[in-house]
């Protein structure tokens, strides 16, 4: 079945270190979205990638979509304590479909 794998499951970093989480799908995605969920909170949309090889930046966050549209990554430069939370990727397999397949998330802990 359609499934989006995400690694690592947990990541502890010292404040100021970089952080990367990866998503992989066995089949081609139409697009991929990234969400952040603070502890005890709800997922909040960060960004959507649609084009093959697309790279988007939001301040210290860099999002990439693979050339084959089967993988994606989120990289945070110089983490801050405000980056704490779980980052989810969510893939859409078909344009016009109504189900995003969420990865299991990467829980980021930033040690001050």
């Amino acid at each position, binding site marked *: 079945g359609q499934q989006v794998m995400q690694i690592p499951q947990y990541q502890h970093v010292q404040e100021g270190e970089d952080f990367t989480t990866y998503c992989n799908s066995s089949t081609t995605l*139409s697009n991929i979205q990234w969400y952040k969920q603070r502890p005890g909170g*709800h*997922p909040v949309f960060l960004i959507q990638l*649609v084009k093959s090889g697309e790279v988007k930046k939001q301040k210290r966050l860099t999002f990439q979509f693979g050339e084959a549209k089967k993988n994606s990554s989120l990289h945070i430069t110089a983490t801050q304590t405000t980056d704490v939370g779980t980052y*989810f990727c969510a893939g859409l397999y078909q*344009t016009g479909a*109504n*189900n995003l397949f*969420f990865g299991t998330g990467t829980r980021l802990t930033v040690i001050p």
Partner: protein
Amino acid sequence: NAGVTQTPKFRILKIGQSMTLQCTQDMNHNYMYWYRQDPGMGLKLIYYSVGAGITDKGEVPNGYNVSRSTTEDFPLRLELAAPSQTSVYFCASSYPGQGLSGNTIYFGEGSWLTVV
């Protein structure tokens, strides 16, 4: 705008009891969804609706029912609660378009449900 509002925030149910999770949105979104999130896991789609009067099953619909009588409201019904339904439930909505393509999903704050 309040966005997506869901109630209750917390609820403890006994096995076999029934309950309804309420969800309303004031953004005039046609698309609405119910997800569940088990501890340490991602979100799985239970049911969704593309407009009033239309509902469809998601990945994990068993044990749940929904209705969509208005654009604003999308309640989720648990008929015979089971321990496996202990989870956090998120209602969400998005603006109509090409399904989810290009459309942000807005989530409610979640409902923590425990079945004992």
